[in-house]
């Protein structure tokens, strides 16, 4: 009895996203699917969950061939998928999210639904307020809601696509605990990730994919070197942070209070020196973004002062912050950083600072071609921003950054990037740091924070709980701080 995939093919245009994928997962197995971005993992999972139809190939569950034409077919066969960005309805309540799409009577019985929600939540140790709006939940909680819902609907195969992106360390522990329990109960769990350590920690067996094909299957215990070699063909060694001499103070905050909708950062005092890397840790929405936006000049503080070098920028316009050498790269690369529909060449021209009325497109395109090569962007000067992968969008954003940046503010510099792109990003950032740029970045990735920061400011519900030295802090300590605990028990 098992889930069997036989020779799945799926192409998008000229790209073969899945090129003859064959895979078998036994009951009670926690099966990892590993591969870098664009390896075809998500496509494969969407095929199994009926979200997209394969061009050819067969899916068998418990010896029976499934006709997967829509998610409805998959749900009826007991296959449930948790998408990378949990597909909840933000303005609806938790309860309505739980009930939407479930079978039952014409008239909605919310009382019975609430009972079912409570039972499902209790079974897995979640707690929800049924009347709360889904938009008030953290990504981790939205995920828990989706898991509870899928299991309540009778899923016997659970697919999780990069489930640890954007959730807290505590929520991750909880998730792993539940997945282990489900496997013990005989469920089939497919766990998609590009993070080696997670696969190693959690899975019984793993399939490694590369360019739409299965490279091989490996049983636990895994060897990291072997997995990496299967993923990339050769071993990537990521270098740590070289020591750099710190210069004079670039950014100085004195008792700054700033708030944005639900988050308030209160009386924060902090300074960052030239050539320093300050990491911002904490659960999503603990104030890191609010802090960064205040430093970027996008939010006006209610109290306190923000100084850049010798200049007091408190309450000044965004333009003044830019002129002072502040550069902000937000988390939404396509939404906030780039312009969808515009090509790479147009992006470069837009940020070139050329003041002439007419655009010299020949010159601009030549410059764009040069920049594309120089920054290893996979795309042409005509490629529009949304056609680029996450890694290449980040490369474009970095390529567009002016040379004289004194303070670089970044959110999730490598979120969703494969190891190669992530390494490239940090090589660029560290080179900037060598030349005296101060870097402040927020990240949910503990390894990234510890590896590249000089100091780490840990945010907890709007306040900086503590600022620690990255060199002497362990991941466990950092994890506990992020969870709001001052010391390791």
């Amino acid at each position, binding site marked *: 009895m098992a889930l069997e995939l036989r020779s799945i093919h799926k192409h998008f245009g000229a790209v073969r996203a899945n090129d003859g994928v064959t895979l078998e997962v036994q009951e009670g197995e926690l099966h990892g699917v590993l591969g870098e971005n664009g390896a075809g993992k998500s496509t494969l999972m969407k095929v199994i969950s009926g979200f997209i139809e394969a061009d050819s190939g067969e899916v068998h569950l418990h010896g029976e061939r499934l006709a997967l034409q829509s998610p409805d077919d998959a749900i009826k066969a007991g296959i449930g998928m948790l998408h990378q960005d949990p597909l909840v*309805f933000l303005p609806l309540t938790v309860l309505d999210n739980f009930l939407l799409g479930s079978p039952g009577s014409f008239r909605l019985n919310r009382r019975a639904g609430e009972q079912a929600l409570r039972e499902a939540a209790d079974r897995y140790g979640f707690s929800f307020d049924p009347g709360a709006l889904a938009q008030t939940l953290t990504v981790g909680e939205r995920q828990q809601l989706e898991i509870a819902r899928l299991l309540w609907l009778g899923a016997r195969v659970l697919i999780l696509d990069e489930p640890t992106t954007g959730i807290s360390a505590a929520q991750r522990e909880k998730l792993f605990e539940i997945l282990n329990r489900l496997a013990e109960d005989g469920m089939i769990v497919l766990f998609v990730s590009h993070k080696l350590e997670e696969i190693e920690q959690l899975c019984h067996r793993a399939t490694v994919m590369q360019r739409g094909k299965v490279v091989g299957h490996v049983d636990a215990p895994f060897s990291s070197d072997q997995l990496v070699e299967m993923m990339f063909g050769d071993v990537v060694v990521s270098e740590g942070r070289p020591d750099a001499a710190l210069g004079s103070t670039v950014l100085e905050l004195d008792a700054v209070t700033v708030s944005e909708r639900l988050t308030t950062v209160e009386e924060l005092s902090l300074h960052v020196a030239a050539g320093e890397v300050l990491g911002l840790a904490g659960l999503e929405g603990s104030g890191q973004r609010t802090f960064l936006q205040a430093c970027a000049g996008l939010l006006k503080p209610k109290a306190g002062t923000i100084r850049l070098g010798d200049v007091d920028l408190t309450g000044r316009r965004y333009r003044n912050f830019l002129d002072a050498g502040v550069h902000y790269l937000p988390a939404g690369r396509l939404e906030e950083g780039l312009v969808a529909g515009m090509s790479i060449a147009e992006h470069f021209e837009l940020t070139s600072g050329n003041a002439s009325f007419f655009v010299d497109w020949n010159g601009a395109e030549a410059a764009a071609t040069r920049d594309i090569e120089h920054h290893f962007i996979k795309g042409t000067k005509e490629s529009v921003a949304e056609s680029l992968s996450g890694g290449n969008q980040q490369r474009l954003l970095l390529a567009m950054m002016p040379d004289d940046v004194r303070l670089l503010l970044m959110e999730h510099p490598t979120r969703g990037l494969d190891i190669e792109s992530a390494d490239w990003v940090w090589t660029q950032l560290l080179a900037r740091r060598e030349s005296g740029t101060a870097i402040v970045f927020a990240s949910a990735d503990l390894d990234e924070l510890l590896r590249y920061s000089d100091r780490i400011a840990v945010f907890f519900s709007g306040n900086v709980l503590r600022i620690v030295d990255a060199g002497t802090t362990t991941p466990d300590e950092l994890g506990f701080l992020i969870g709001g605990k001052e010391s390791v028990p």
Partner: protein
Amino acid sequence: MEVIAGIVAAATPLVYATIGETISEKAGVINLSLDGSILLSAMTGFAAAFVTDSVIIGYLAAMAVSAVIALIVAVTSIELRLNQIAVGFVLFLFARQLALFLGNSYVGVNGPKVPSWDIPLLSEIPFVGTVFFQHNISVYGSFVVIFFAYWFIYRTRPGLVLQGVGERPEAAFARGVPVNRLRYLYTVVGGAMVGMAGAAVSLDQIAGWREGLTTNVGWIALAFVIFGGWHPYRVALACYLYRALLFVAGEFQVQFPDLVQVLTQLPFLLMILMITVINTEWFRRLGDRYPRWRNFLASAAPSGSGQVFVRE
């Protein structure tokens, strides 16, 4: 009392139009052709009733015409992935011109009219009876439509799915919902309801056909769907409020005849003011303070409206 009853009756076409559009937009399809649809269905409804001497056939014809226009919006948006706004606007112009052209021979003709019918017992209740139950089927139907739309959207399972389809189609699809099939269904149902607005004008309120008969009711309805936060009760409230304001403005006109042009525009100014108020942070927070009223107080458009849902 008669005044209030008059206001309630006068708002009937607007109610049909706004509730119909609310249903369509809840599913994620914006039908901008509303004003043209109403005019064409008013003409068709009157013509059909005149020829057959049956008000019922007039209503059915009006609904059918408007449903077909809505279907065109749905097909061009879902199958051809055209911009809903552009298609809707062109359809508005087309339907309006078609109504004027085809309706030429019916101008000034006397036709059948929806008969008045006091609801037994209920109409004898003091005040309430006069205001609500001494009208005709067309007006009673508008009450039913308001309550049913509310009940369906917020109290039934298909209604919850409808909200999901307009809010985040890919998430609804992931839950096994046939997104585009439902969009067809609700756009056509909403369109048919819009057709009733036309019939309510030409077979009840004005009872006849001439150019400009429906007095821009479609455009006003589009604005009131937004003002009403896509909630049937609030949308209906907006319609009644508007008719009440119009009545007050009419009363002032008698006293200040020089200000006729200004006074008839006053309700619109007030509406703009109200839309400003409901979009303030303060109003948005009201829903958090009174969770029971949250749906009623919400002002956000369905996130997926106007968007084409394409499966990868």
